[in-house]
C-alpha cells in the first residue's frame, strides 16, 4: 500500500524552505514560522507515537499553547496596537487583577441568566416531547415546524423579551428558554422514536405498561438524542444570555461589561470576559459530555476501540 503521494520528508522540507524564504525578507516572520513548524512537528510525532489517555490530553494542550505563544510573539514582534489585539499576557494580567468583577459578571450572566433558562427550557422541551410522543398526528406536524423554528434566528427575540421581563436576569433566562426549546424538543421527539419495532414488540409480549416501556426501553434509547440536544443547547444558552444583555441589563453581567469596556477601548478587559465565557462554555459542554459518557456508555459512539 502506498501511504501517500508526497514522500515522508516532503512536509518538513516544505516547512524549512518556507522559513528560509521568510528569513530573506522578514526575520520576525521566519521566527514565528519556525516556532509553528517546530511545535507542529513535535505534535505530529506525538500523535503518531503516543497512545492512550495522556496523548489525548497532551496533544490538544500543546496545540493550544502553541497558538497562544504565536499570538504573543506576533503582538510583541510586530508591535500590534493594544486597541486592535492585546497580548495574552496582558489579558491574563487583567484577569488576575479584575477577578472579583469577572466573578460577579459570571454569576449574573451564566449562573443566573443562562443556567436558569437552560434548565427551564430543556426541562419544558423534554416534558413537551413526552406529551407530543403519545400522538403520532402531533409528532408529524411538530417535527417539520420545530425543525423550521430551530433554524430561525431566535436571538432576534432578545429585544422583545427585555421589553417584557425587564432588565434583570429573568429576561435573559426567557431568551435562553426561547432559544433552547425547539432544538431540544426536536431531539427529544426523535429520540423517543429511536427504539426498534422489534424491541417495542418484545415489551408488548411482556405485557409492559406505557410507563414501564417508557422507563425501561424508550428513555434509555432516547438518551443519545437527548444529550445531543443538551450539548447543542449549552452554547445556545450562553449566546442567548450574553446577547440579551446587549439590549438592556443591570450594571453587572458579561454582555454589559463587554459593551461598556468596548466603548472605553479597554480591550484587555473585553478579551478577559471572552476568555471567561469560553472557559465557562467549554466547561459546561464538557460537563454535559461527561454525564453523557456515564449514562450512555453502551452506545456505539461512546466506545473507544
Amino acid at each position, binding site marked *: *500500500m502506498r501511504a501517500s503521494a508526497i514522500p515522508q520528508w516532503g512536509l518538513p522540507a516544505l516547512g524549512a524552505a518556507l522559513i528560509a524564504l521568510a528569513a530573506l525578507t522578514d526575520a520576525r516572520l521566519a521566527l514565528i514560522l519556525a516556532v509553528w513548524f517546530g511545535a507542529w512537528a513535535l505534535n505530529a510525532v506525538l*500523535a503518531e507515537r503516543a497512545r492512550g489517555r495522556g496523548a489525548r490530553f497532551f496533544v490538544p494542550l500543546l496545540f*493550544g499553547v502553541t497558538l497562544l505563544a504565536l499570538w504573543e510573539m506576533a503582538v510583541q514582534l510586530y508591535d500590534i496596537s493594544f486597541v486592535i489585539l492585546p497580548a495574552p499576557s496582558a489579558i491574563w494580567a487583567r484577569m488576575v487583577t479584575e477577578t472579583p468583577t469577572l466573578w460577579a459578571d459570571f454569576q449574573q450572566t451564566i449562573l443566573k441568566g443562562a443556567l436558569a433558562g437552560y434548565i427551564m427550557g430543556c426541562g419544558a422541551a423534554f416534558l413537551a416531547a413526552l406529551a407530543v410522543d403519545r400522538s403520532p398526528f402531533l409528532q408529524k406536524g411538530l417535527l417539520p415546524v420545530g425543525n423550521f423554528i430551530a433554524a430561525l434566528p431566535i436571538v*432576534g427575540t432578545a429585544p422583545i423579551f427585555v421589553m417584557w421581563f425587564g432588565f434583570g436576569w429573568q429576561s435573559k433566562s426567557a431568551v435562553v428558554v426561547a432559544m433552547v426549546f425547539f432544538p431540544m424538543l426536536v431531539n427529544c421527539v426523535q429520540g423517543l422514536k429511536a427504539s426498534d419495532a422489534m424491541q417495542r414488540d418484545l415489551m408488548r409480549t411482556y405485557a409492559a405498561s406505557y410507563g414501564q416501556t417508557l422507563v425501561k426501553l424508550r428513555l434509555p434509547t432516547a438518551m443519545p438524542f437527548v444529550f445531543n440536544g443538551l450539548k447543542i443547547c449549552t452554547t445556545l444558552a450562553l449566546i442567548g444570555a450574553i446577547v440579551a444583555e446587549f439590549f438592556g441589563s443591570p450594571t453587572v453581567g458579561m454582555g454589559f461589561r463587554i459593551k461598556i469596556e468596548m466603548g472605553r477601548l479597554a480591550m484587555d478587559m473585553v478579551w478577559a470576559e471572552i476568555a471567561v465565557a469560553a472557559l465557562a462554555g*467549554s466547561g459546561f459542554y464538557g460537563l454535559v459530555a461527561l454525564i453523557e459518557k456515564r449514562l450512555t456508555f453502551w452506545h456505539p459512539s461512546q466506545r473507544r476501540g
Partner: protein
Amino acid sequence: MSAATAYGANDRSGAAGWIAALSSTVLPVLTIVLAIVAIWYAASVMMNRAWTLDEAERRGVQLTVMEIVSDAMNQERPVLPTPHQVFDELWSTTVGEPVMRERRGEMQGNPRNLVFHAYHTLWPTILGFGIGSFLGILLAIGITHSRAMDMSVMPWAIASQTIPILAIAPIIVVVVSNLPALNNAVSQGWISEDTKLLVPKALISAYLSFFPVVVGMVAGLRSPQATDLDLMRTYSASRGQTFWKLRLPASVPFLFTSLKVSIAAALVGTIVAELPTGARFGLGARLLTGSYYGQTIQIWSALFMAAICAAALVILLGALEKIVLKRMGARS
C-alpha cells in the same frame, strides 16, 4: 415523507394516493401552525388588554368584551402584535414601498423597504457561508487525513464555538475595519466603502458556519465502510484516488445536511453582527431601531423577514441537494 408516499402507493394509486400522501403530511403541519396562530392571538389579547383597560378607565368609558378584544388586537404599539398586524406591516414594507428611490440626484436603495434590509443581510450571509463552508471542508479533509490534526484541532474547534459570537463581533468589526490592507483597497478604488462594511459581517457569519460543516464533513469522509476501503486497497489505489473516488462521493449527503444547518447559523451570525456595530442597514439594524423606539410591530416584521430568508436559503440548498444526488445516481 418517503414513508407517507410508500403508504399511499401501497393501497391506492394515482390521484387518490397523492391526496392521501398529502393529507398525511400537510394536515398535521397545518394543524400545528393553526394552533400556534390561535395561541398567539390569545396571548396578544391577554398581554395588550391591560393598556386598553387603562385607557378606557382614564376616559371613563365602559367597554364590552368584544370592544376590549378588538382594541387589544389593533393597538399601535402593542406589547405583542397580532399576526395580522405583523403581516400588514410585512406587506406594506415590501410591496407597498418602492425598492429604489431617488435621493440627491441618484437612485439608491429605499431604507423603508424591508427587501432592501434583507438584501443587506443576505449578501454577507452568503459570502460568509461560502468562506465558512470552504474552510470547513478543507479542515475536515485535513482532520481525516492527519492524526495529528484530528487530535489537536478538533477539541479547539469545539471550544471555539463556546465563545459567544456577540462578544467577538465588536472586536472583529474594530480590527477588520482598521486593517491596512482593507483601507488600502478602498482608497485604491478596488472595493467600495459599502463592501468594506460587509466584510466584518461576513467574517462573523463564516465563524459560525464553519463548525457544522467540519463536524458533518468529518463524519461523511469517515462514512465509507471498512469493506469499501479494503476494496480500494486491493485496487492499490493511492490516498488521493481513495479520496476522490470513495470518500468524497460518500460524504455528499452529510455535506448537504450540515450545509443546511450552517447557512441558518450564518444568517444568525450576520444579524448578531449588525447589533453591536451600529449598522444602519440590515435586518439586525431594523431590530435594534425597533427596540430603541418601542416599535414592536417593526421588530416582529423584521423577525419574520429573517425567518423567510432562512427558509428560502434552506429550501434552495435542499433543491440543490436533490439535483446533485440525482446526478450522482442516488435513488430518489
